[in-house]
């Protein structure tokens, strides 16, 4: 319990740091960001949007930095991320609320699938070391090095455009009303298959390699030898070794997750999938700073939440963290 409380405290500190960085970035940049924005958009931004941006960034010049900083936190506490300049007058929160469920389902499902497949294959490759299964490693390395969005382009052109098996853009058939109906969910799954395959194939290699390396190390331990010498069936022996070898995989989840999230954002762009990544592209193109910053915060919080989940799993898998008093 104490272990988990410490982790929660750490995530709170991280969240605070992310918010603070987010607040200070516009203040530290050379020049007046609002003026830069007006100059870049060449009059496309309406005066209301500019004023809203100025207030939201705390650049009105009426208040001290400190009171602006406090004001920023107060706004955040109400879930107010400001006004989007490209979707003016829609608020950033409303834009993100529409996009977030798509991304969470897509990234969540593909991360879990990829972790499970990768770990199982990793165990198998380590167990049968020296056999043809070693050939998995170079292939996995190659796929690890391929950028997600490039692989997505290939999948899109082959399975989407050329063969026409899957839709090439969107999150669901636009003619079906969104809602918890069978038709809509079916269509959403059909549209989600290609992006999911892309994310799984690109990220599975990391899990395979990590699990394989840990498994090779763990299989050398005396207790595995004892288990095998006692004549336990191979399945049991693998179970003993794998349970210990998986711990680093779970604890390095945080590191991998930010890679997966980054890759998934780009995958969404290739498939024009209506999630956060697609919004990110539009925000970049429209130079919509409030939306960009809102996306950064939301992604950071989501990653922190996922990490907390991984920590809970870790505590379940490793009794030592539970006993620690």
């Amino acid at each position, binding site marked *: 319990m104490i272990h988990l409380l410490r982790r929660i405290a750490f995530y709170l500190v*991280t969240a605070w740091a992310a918010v603070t960085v987010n607040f200070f970035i516009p203040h530290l940049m050379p020049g007046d960001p609002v003026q830069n924005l007006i100059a870049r958009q060449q009059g496309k931004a309406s005066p209301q949007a500019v004023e809203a941006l100025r207030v939201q960034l705390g650049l009105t010049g009426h208040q001290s930095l400190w009171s602006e900083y406090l004001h920023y936190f107060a706004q955040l506490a109400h879930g107010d991320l400001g006004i989007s300049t490209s979707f003016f007058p829609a608020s950033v929160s409303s834009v993100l609320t529409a996009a977030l469920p798509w991304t969470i389902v897509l990234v969540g499902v593909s991360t879990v699938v990829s972790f499970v497949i990768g770990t199982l294959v990793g165990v198998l490759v380590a167990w049968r070391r020296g056999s043809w299964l070693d050939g998995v490693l170079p292939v996995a390395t190659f796929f690890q090095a391929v950028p997600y969005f*490039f692989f997505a382009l290939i999948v899109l052109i082959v399975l989407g455009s050329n063969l026409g098996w899957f839709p090439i853009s969107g999150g669901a058939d636009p003619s079906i009303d969104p809602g918890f109906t069978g038709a809509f969910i079916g269509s959403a799954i059909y549209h989600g298959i290609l992006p999911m395959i892309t994310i799984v194939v690109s990220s599975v290699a990391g899990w395979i390699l990590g699990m394989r390396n840990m498994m090779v190390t763990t299989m050398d331990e005396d207790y595995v030898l004892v288990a095998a010498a006692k004549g336990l069936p191979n399945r049991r022996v693998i179970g003993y070794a794998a349970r210990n070898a998986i711990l680093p995989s779970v604890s390095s989840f945080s590191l991998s997750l930010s890679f997966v999230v980054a890759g998934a954002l780009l995958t969404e762009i290739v498939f024009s999938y209506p999630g956060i990544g697609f919004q990110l592209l539009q925000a970049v193109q429209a130079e919509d700073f409030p939306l960009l910053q809102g996306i950064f915060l939301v992604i950071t919080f989501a990653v922190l939440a996922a990490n907390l989940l991984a920590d809970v799993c870790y505590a379940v898998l490793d009794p030592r963290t539970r006993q620690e008093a």
Partner: protein
Amino acid sequence: MTAQTALDIAEVTAAAPRRQRALRFPRSRKTIVGLVLLAIFVLLAVVGPLLAPHDPTATSADLLQGPSAAHLLGTTQSGQDVLSELLVGARGTVLIGFLAGLIASVLSVLIGVTAGYLGGLADDLLSLLTNVFLVVPGLPLLIVLAAYLPKSTGANPLVLALIIALTGWAWGARVLRAQTMSIRGRDYVAAARVAGERTSRIVFAEILPNLTAIVASSFVFTVLYAIGTYVALAFLGVVDPARWSWGGMLFWAQSQNAAQVGAWWWFLPPGLAIALLGTSLALLNFGLDEFINPRLRAAGLSRKAAKAAGVPRRVRFGLTPVRGGRR
């Protein structure tokens, strides 16, 4: 994953005799392939712009042509030569990757070794900093940073490398901290301290040389990360796409629907180039990992080689025999 392995295993390194290490490292086939590939890419980065048959920005009348004798890799929507873009783009991609890797390595050594050596409150604070940077997703932060930078500053390779390095140093710092803590407790370091050696000498002469393999491995890993990140930023159009890089090529290919119209010669070459460059770095890191952790090396003889030599090779208990255990 690799981080943890490196942690667990690094202790093995110190024991191996120096001469043997130097001989064994380049022997692994993976490492050699990785090194050769990497050398080709570095060479390409140096001479690529000189080899380009056309000016990559020059448009011509051949719009969206497939590969031909005049344009070996075809042309883009506006008639630019893809091969020239690829050759000119090599420099930007490789340069930023290595620059960012270098800056991040310096940062991670500074912070990781300091935290590991000092311990106490300094360690707590630096570890906290490291962990925060490890957890915060790098790409969205970079996009916000790059988007706020004025366009002229944002196009500067050094600035780009610097901000990429800012999000990429934490992994190496964590591994180095753990290894420094382990080395700090060894007898010879204690002896050096008792002998009254200066702290700077203990760090630079006693501790750092034993971290070389880990620093190298984290450098390669960071270069890999930096190239991936730079490509992603360019692909998004955050970095000025008018400067040629492989990510920038993919940006244009994507924004002009190259995949939809089936112009594979447009986006396949830069993507494959990135993938191959990444593979070469990953293979190199494999070699380094195996060098740090002997147990990761493929065990003994392969089945074929064993048969040829007439050695019976039976796997007992389904366990793989391993040469030279830890104890």
